[in-house]
């Protein structure tokens, strides 16, 4: 599966309050949450994001609260992959559980500049920077996380395992 989109750079230790502020946690609708994505980081950020774009972050992306509204807000804005030097652990689980792919790639986190065009192969973790004619290799997605992504997230995965019939 390939993603092509523009990179939006953010820094180290971006917390889930910056991704979606606490005052908006009164909805579970990804589209509504997406309206306020990164609002406290930069109020003009949201207007620059188009579906398919890629967030490129530094260390420890997603630190802080366990709010699953954070990956939902990203998905609601049409973001399907986040590349970072590293991720905070609860956010990491929440993202894969909802089908948001996270790629760990410190090199990409250093080299990619805001606005670069990226082509990402989610299967292999290969990141092509079309703007700079560079290629970076992310850590492969761990096998269990791959299973979650292939199943369509944690809930379909649990349904398969429990043998619950029908589709929801």
């Amino acid at each position: 599966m390939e993603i092509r989109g523009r990179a939006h750079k953010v820094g180290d230790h971006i917390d889930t309050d910056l991704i979606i502020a606490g005052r908006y946690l009164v909805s579970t609708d990804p589209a509504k949450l997406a309206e306020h994505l990164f609002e406290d980081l930069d109020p003009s950020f949201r207007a620059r994001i188009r579906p398919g774009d890629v967030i490129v972050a530094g260390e420890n992306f997603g630190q802080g609260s366990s709010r699953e509204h954070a990956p939902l807000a990203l998905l609601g804005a049409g973001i399907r992959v986040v590349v970072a030097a590293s991720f905070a652990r609860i956010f990491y689980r929440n993202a894969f559980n909802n089908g948001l792919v996270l790629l760990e790639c410190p090199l990409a986190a250093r080299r990619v500049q805001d606005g670069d065009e990226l082509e990402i192969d989610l299967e292999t973790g290969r990141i092509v920077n079309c703007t700079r004619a560079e290629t970076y290799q992310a850590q492969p997605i761990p096998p269990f996380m791959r299973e979650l992504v292939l199943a369509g997230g944690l809930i379909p995965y649990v349904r398969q395992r429990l043998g619950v019939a029908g589709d929801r």
Partner: protein
Amino acid sequence: MGMTITEKILAQHADLPSVRPGDLVECRVDMLFANDITAPLAIQQFERIGIGRVFDPDRVAFVLDHYVPPKDIASAEQCRITREFVRKHNLPHFYDTGRAGIAHVLLAEEGFVAPGELFVGADSHTCNHGALGAFATGVGSSDLAAAMATGRLWFRVPHTLKFVFRGTLRPWVTGKDLVLRVIGDIGVDGARYAAMEFAGPVLRQLTMDERFSIANMAVEAGAKNGIMEPDEVVLEWVRPRARRPFTPVYSDPDAEYAALYEYDVSEMEPVVAAPSSPSNVVPVTEAAGVRVDQCFIGTCTNGRIEDLRQAARILAGRRVHPDVRLIVIPATPRVYRQALEEGLIQIFLEAGAAVSTSTCGPCIGGHMGVLADGEVCVSTSSRNFVGRMGHRQSKVYLSNAAVAAAAAVAGRIVHPDEVVRSPVAA
């Protein structure tokens, strides 16, 4: 090779003789919970699973604590969704306004967590319960839904970092100061994916309330869990409360630690974490003089009776500075009642503080003390991220309850000693 307390609890709950850091294991969950922010999403995901019933109603709790009493129609709807689910499934452990407190404090008080158990909550500060010698960790709503359906959840076994505290604590230096100091040293990702095991003679002298503050903030260093071996203080605290028989678990003498950090705390001052990271930690005297608009004493980190006693020691006979609002929120109705009985609420009201019913409220900038543009707050909470308590240009200093109370009196950040040295009003 021996195992740490964290590895042992995970192995026992995975029905394995042993586990090693990095192993992926599926564990039985002893107890789980969600709050009014995370429950609606967990319920939605649970309904999608389509299994129709929770694995064991006696092991599921719902606590409405964040935006309660509801601040607006949307938050009232979140509570309603949770309430209806609880009724539909006839779940016995539901805590609604009046009987609800901040979940981490309430669920420990109510005996839902005991040494050696595995506890998950859809709230990042669930690591709080590690102070009881349990493996406790925060998860998202989907994970909680999966655990609610199956009674099981997968974990990657974390490596363990050990923190040993020795020496003698000076006055006004608390568990909160110890954990802030650690986070200041190792950073907000210093324990990413790791277990933080706290130990040493200083820890054993701390009250349960101060121990909870320490375990509570493990997540602020990126940890999966914070944990302490259950000593006699823990066992005496848990025995009258525990709802099930339990077996304490201890680290093996030859357990392997990824790193060992040793602290002599004897020279330590109270500290604050300056804006806008819990790792931006300095001694209180280095931040002295910063003018404050609001002080907040409460939350799952420091809204317990011991915190209120520390604050009352500063506030007794004194007045909150005319330019400052002081908000005090006892973490649970039980803490509130005890504070009433001990005369603490009287002290707060006479000092000019606002005292509220239990809620997380101001800690996540929800209600009950949201900050305006440029305002400064000294807060006993656990996070001072940009915009955490309100406007993105507001600033939060994290501290213990005595430092927050002292700042409320002085109108600026001060060492508590400076306030208690000044004479009280006649």
